[in-house]
Every structure is written in structure tokens, then in C-alpha cells.
């Protein structure tokens, strides 16, 4: 069963054009001109229950707009939506009982009152029975180690403490689908790891479907089996993280440091029967890129052990997801290298 189904979803914002200068401002007063800006442009995907899916893209790619449509905050301009059996914006009050939402940039808690009072209020709002609430709260408080924070007012918490409380607030009613919009933004590495672990456990234990947006690809690597990449309101990649890596990863990079000068042509000659490309800053330093269908050891065997080459250091590095994604963002499309239908 699919937890989230999206078909040809679009959201177009009308943005007022401001004309320049005082004259322009006066003109704007009487006749306004609008630009139509598609924030989300005809996207389709579906997420089966129990999956953790990462939703990534540059700033302004339309991630938050999608999340806001999926949670019922915004009404789509066109397209079909089904989340947990509901059309979010149509049956909003019934629908939101099944979902949990965390916006990393914005607090869901009441600023002035103690954390535990916020939770109590949320219990009433969601109509969670006293027994269930206690059990759930105990479990979450223990898991996220919140014990002594509960009596403090939200405004006195650090960001990491607040974010853990936000998670509890979003999960008190045991939702089956959870939306996280940049849940790890601005957090230190320890809290980040803690939150990732927690989300993974929750997914395993309750089969919670999770859709998260993030700029930290380590979130994705740690959590997601699948990633949807967005650019200018369109989906440019939808599939496994591994596929993304094998297809767009440029393979392995070997960096050599030489004791004595070793010019580039000589290295190229040594590996002439392998399809690798060399680059060098100077004669003492060279890099070779080995694509993923070749063996690193084959290349090494050609270079290492040549009597006239003295090597002082070798470094082998894999292209990271960060590099892959940066490259895709820069070219604006994953299509360039695409060969099969997984790329949209």
C-alpha cells in the first residue's frame, strides 16, 4: 500500500511585479502586474508505507512547497494528492491526526510555557487518551533523554534540546506518516546522529513512513533507501541512493605524490591500455580518475613498482555523495548521464 501518492502535482504562485522608482510604485498602486512562478511543476511519485524517503534539492527548488501541500497547509494549483487515504487540504482536520510534522526552522511548541505543558496541550488537541499518552511520552522521553528538560519553558532551550522536544511533540499521537522539513538544520554532530538513530528506530519499530527534506546528505545516507531530487520544481531523480552513486559517481580518484619528477606523458603512456584520465598540477603530484568499471589495483599495478618512479604517498578517494549531488545541482539536471527510465 502506498502511504503517499502524488500525480501531476503543481503549485503556481502569483508574484506581484514591482516596477522601479516612485513612478513605478504609483503605477503599481492602480494596476498590478503579476508573474506566475511555478514552485512545483507537474511532479508525480508515490511512497510505499514504511519507507524513509529523502527529498533533496537546492534552496528554492520546491521542497518545502511540496511538503506543505502534502501536509494540507497549501492547496495545490492542480494535480492529485493522496496521503494516508486522505486528500490533505480537503479533510484537513481528520487527515492531520495521522501525520506528524516537524519544521526545523519553525517551532511547533508554545514559546512561553513549559515543554511538558505544551505536550499536555497537544494531547488534548489530538485527543490522545491519558493512558496512551503516558506510555508514549515515557518512551519518547527516555529514548531522547529529555528527563530534566520537561519543566523548562521552550524559549530557554538550546536548539538541539528544542529539536528533540519538537520531535516528541510531532510524535505524541503516534502518526503513521511523518514529514520532516530540515530536521537537522543547525544541529551539532552528536544531536544529528542521535536524531538519525531515533528516526531509524521509529521506522523499524512502528513502520512509520518518513519523508524528509534536508541539505545534509549524511542524513540521507544514514536514513534513506530512496531519494527524490528536485530542481526548479521538477523531479530530476527518483531512485535508490546506491544507483545514484554508481551511475553518477565518477569512480575512484588516486592521488600520487612523487619523490622525483614524473611528467604527465610518462604516466599516460604507462596506462595507455586503460581508459583513465590523468591530471597533474606539477611533476611531483598527479591524480588519476578510475571509472567504476575498472579495477583500482590494475591501475596501481601499472604505476607502482616502476623502477624509475619513486612514490612517497598514495591516496585513494571515492567520490562522495556531496560531490555527485553538487555536480547534478550545477548542471541542473541528472539527465545528462542518464541511460534508463529511472530518471525523470
Amino acid at each position, binding site marked *: 500500500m502506498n502511504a503517499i501518492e502524488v500525480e501531476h502535482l503543481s503549485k503556481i504562485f502569483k508574484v506581484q511585479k514591482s516596477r522601479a522608482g516612485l513612478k513605478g510604485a504609483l503605477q503599481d498602486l492602480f494596476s498590478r502586474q503579476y508573474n506566475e512562478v511555478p514552485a512545483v511543476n507537474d511532479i508525480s511519485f508515490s511512497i510505499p508505507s514504511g519507507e524513509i524517503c529523502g527529498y533533496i534539492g537546492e534552496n528554492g527548488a520546491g521542497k518545502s512547497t511540496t511538503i506543505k501541500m502534502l501536509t494540507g*497547509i497549501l492547496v495545490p494549483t492542480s494535480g492529485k494528492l493522496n496521503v494516508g487515504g486522505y486528500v490533505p*487540504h480537503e479533510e*484537513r*482536520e481528520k487527515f492531520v491526526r495521522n501525520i506528524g510534522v516537524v519544521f526545523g526552522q519553525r517551532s511547533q511548541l508554545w514559546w512561553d510555557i513549559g515543554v511538558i*505543558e505544551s505536550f499536555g496541550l497537544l494531547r*488534548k*488537541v489530538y485527543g490522545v487518551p491519558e493512558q496512551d499518552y503516558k506510555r508514549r511520552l515515557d518512551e519518547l522521553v527516555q529514548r531522547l533523554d529529555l528527563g530534566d528538560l520537561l519543566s523548562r519553558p521552550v524559549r530557554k532551550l538550546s536548539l538541539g534540546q528544542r529539536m528533540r522536544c519538537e520531535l516528541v511533540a510531532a510524535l505524541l499521537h503516534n502518526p503513521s506518516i511523518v514529514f520532516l522539513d530540515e530536521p537537522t538544520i543547525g544541529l551539532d554532530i552528536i544531536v544529528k546522529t542521535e536524531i538519525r538513530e531515533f528516526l531509524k528506530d521509529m521506522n523499524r519499530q512502528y513502520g512509520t513512513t518518513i519523508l524528509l527534506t534536508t541539505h545534509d546528505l549524511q542524513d540521507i545516507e544514514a536514513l534513506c533507501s530512496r531519494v527524490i531530487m528536485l530542481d526548479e520544481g521538477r523531479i530530476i531523480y527518483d531512485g535508490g541512493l546506491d544507483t545514484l552513486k554508481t551511475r553518477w559517481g565518477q569512480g575512484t580518484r588516486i592521488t600520487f605524490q612523487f619523490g622525483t619528477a614524473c611528467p604527465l606523458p610518462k604516466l599516460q603512456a604507462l596506462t595507455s591500455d586503460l581508459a583513465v584520465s590523468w591530471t597533474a598540477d606539477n611533476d611531483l603530484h598527479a591524480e588519476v580518475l578510475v571509472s567504476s568499471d575498472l579495477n583500482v589495483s590494475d591501475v596501481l599495478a601499472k604505476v607502482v613498482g616502476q623502477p624509475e618512479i619513486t612514490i612517497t604517498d598514495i591516496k585513494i578517494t571515492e567520490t562522495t555523495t556531496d560531490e555527485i549531488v553538487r555536480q547534478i545541482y550545477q548542471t541542473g539536471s541528472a539527465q545528462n548521464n542518464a541511460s534508463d527510465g529511472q530518471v525523470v
Partner: protein
Amino acid sequence: MYYIGLVIEYLKNYLKTRLTYRADFWVEVISDLLMQASNLIFIFVVFGHTNSLGGWSEAEVIFVYGFFMIPFGLFTCFVNLWNFSDRYIVKGEMDRILTRPAYNLFQIFLENIDPPGLIGSLIGVVIMIASGSQLGLELVWWHFPIMILFAISATLIYAGIYIALTSLSFYSDSPTGILPLLYNIQNYGRYPVTIYNRTIQFLLTWIIPFAFVGIYPASLFLGRTEMFHMAWLTPVMAIIFATIGLTSWNIGVKKYRGAGS
């Protein structure tokens, strides 16, 4: 039941936060009362120069003012939309409201609940009793349920007008210049509408019906037969304007664009 439970819960939290800022609480109560007092003094000044205003005596006008204070107090307590545009649209707190399983407007009312307003209602009752006994008004049993019905109706009319106008903020980021204007017009409804010219009478009766928040319903208890038919219209107007308010609100929410990222 669910919504009544929520009201109680939010009130509890209001008390918890407010008791930590007790000075604030009293400043608010006192400034509210001073504002009402200044309005009353204005009435006294007017009647210092004349014995009747469009055929209404001083005690009668004060009685109307007393009645007006009841729905006004209820309105300030439960329908506080003053900073809606800033807080919920510009800062985007509407996002949070919309992801909770209670009617969004109701949640906003609850988050901005302002119980000191109710003190104004109480004082309104006292003023009505004082001026009523001065006038020698006869109290009949059915006055009580009707008084409650009219007070609630008047509050709904008030709420309907303000909700409809506040819902404009879903379309534009800075529309609320109209609210202070309205705040001034609402004062007109406390005086006998017959003293105004036809246009203003029509405006206060049918377009922005503030006359139904003061003079019309109060006339029933004063025995001013010429306005009885208008007095009984109060609940009808309440239904109409509450419907207009809620409808325009619900349409507005659909246009909500969210803020920032």
C-alpha cells in the same frame, strides 16, 4: 465537547503564563477600564449640554452603553485577531495551526484568548443595573434568557465583521489599515441610530451592522417600542454575519501562501 475541553485547557495555560507576569495583567485590565471610562465621560459631557439625544435620555444612553460592553468584552476575550496578519501570515505560524486537528480559526482564537476583556462585560452588567434602576425599568423573567441570546448574537455580529475583514490578510501582506477605521465606526453603534443621517443609519444597520451590537437589542429592555422589530432581528443578523465571516475565512485559508522556506 472536544472544543469546550480545549477552551479550558488553553485558559489554564493562559493563567500559568500570565500569573508569572502579574503586572502585565493588571496594566491591561486598568487600561481597558480607563478606555471604557473615557467613553462614559464623553456621554456625560454630551448630556451636560442637552437633556435628550434624538429622544433618548442620559440614563437610556448609558444603559445602551452598558449593554454594549457585554458583547464587546466577550469579543475582546474570545475573538482577538489584532495581530493575526503579523503573527500568523508574515511569521508563518499559520503553518503550525493548519497541521493540527482542530478548526484553524478556533485554534487562533484560543491562542490569543484574553480573559481580562471579560471584566469589561461584568462592569457593563453593573452599569445596566444602575441605569436600569434609575429609569425604574421593570425586570421580567424572560429578560434573562433574551439578554444572553442578544449578547451572544451581538458578539457573533462583531466577530463576523472582524473575521471577514481579517481574512483579507490571506490575499495581501499588509491590508489591515482598515481595522482601526472600523474600530472607530463601531463606537457609533452605541448611540441612538436615529440621530444620524439616513446613509449612516443604513450603513450601521445593514452593511457593518454595529447598531445591532448596542442600540437595537438594548431597546427591547428599555421598552422603546419603535425599535422592537429591529431588536428581534439581532439573532438573524448574527447568523448572517457569522456565516459571512466564516465563509470568507474558509475561502481565505485556501489562498494561504505560506511564508518563507
